[in-house]
């Protein structure tokens, strides 16, 4: 068995944390490359309507839940996705609280993150950990966050978010996914059309 990661592009909560985590593994010196497949569906598995991912491991495990997948990856690659144990509280916090699209509810948790980042550059310690990957991915997937970050409503959150965005493993990974999904949609459209390019009547 080998690794595969499937991502549901139409999931209610798009799985950027797992996408970025796998990107970290693929960009590292570790002798492993995890192929990533995108499906233009709400779920990766017919058994679970909320499965935003499907990570199949060489050991034959299948994860449909991001927290399980992230913890598995952190355990398997502890130098690449560091501090699984210390990061657990914040990894879970990100996945549970920050996908929410109700700003009133979200605001309380953003305040909590902002306060945590008063004297901290990273969520844990002095470098990236699993928690940074998880929280950044969730915020990137939350459509409410674009203007909140840009306007610096939570100054510490914006500074931290922008630092990570500059690393090619974060923002660039999301752009690569959007491009792949757009290509996928185009090819589906053209195959529905009998493989021909759309012809416009004169």
């Amino acid at each position: 068995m080998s690794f595969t990661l499937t991502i549901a592009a139409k999931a209610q909560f798009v799985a950027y944390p797992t996408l970025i985590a796998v990107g970290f593994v693929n960009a590292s010196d570790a002798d492993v490359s995890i192929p990533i497949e995108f499906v233009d569906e709400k779920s990766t598995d017919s058994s679970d309507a909320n499965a935003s991912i499907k990570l199949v491991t060489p050991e034959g495990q299948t994860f449909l839940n991001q927290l399980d997948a992230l913890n598995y990856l952190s355990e398997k690659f502890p130098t690449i996705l560091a501090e699984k144990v210390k990061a657990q509280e914040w990894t879970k916090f990100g996945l549970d609280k920050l996908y929410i699209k109700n700003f009133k509810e979200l605001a309380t948790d953003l305040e909590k993150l902002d306060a945590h980042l008063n004297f901290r550059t990273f969520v844990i310690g002095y470098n990236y950990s699993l928690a940074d990957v998880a929280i950044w991915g969730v915020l990137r997937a939350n459509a409410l966050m674009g203007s909140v970050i840009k306007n610096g409503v939570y100054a510490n959150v914006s500074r931290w978010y922008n630092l990570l965005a500059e690393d090619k493993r974060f923002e660039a990974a999301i752009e690569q996914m959007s491009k792949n999904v757009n290509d996928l949609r185009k090819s589906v459209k053209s195959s529905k059309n009998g493989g021909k390019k759309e012809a416009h009547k004169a």
Partner: protein
Amino acid sequence: MADFIAKFNKLKLGEASKADEASFPQFSAEQKALAAQFDTLSTRFDEPESVVALNDSLRTKTFVTGNTPSKTDLVVFEKVLPLASKWTSNEDLAKHRHILRWADLVQNTLFEVPQDQKLTLNYDVELPREVKE
């Protein structure tokens, strides 16, 4: 940036001027300007507005010159450390929170600071949230 931190050989406190600029990521034009600005400013930390300017700049930037470390971080840190050691009241912590966040990063990634000179921070002290004007 993170890879840089992992590989960086820390300098001894007091040796900022000896740091080799070539050991840092290359500067953009904007970073060059910021480096010049804060190199100068760091000689005037006896003026309160210089300290305010540094704190304001570090609100949006991880390091003095942006999102990558530079020799300027070392130079400025050596000048700030004696001041920052005295910022212990909640008011001072809140007022200088961005400098303190950055100084803690610098003293743990770029410098070998002797234990008795290190800033000790209570990371979880409750401060009023900064509200954007």
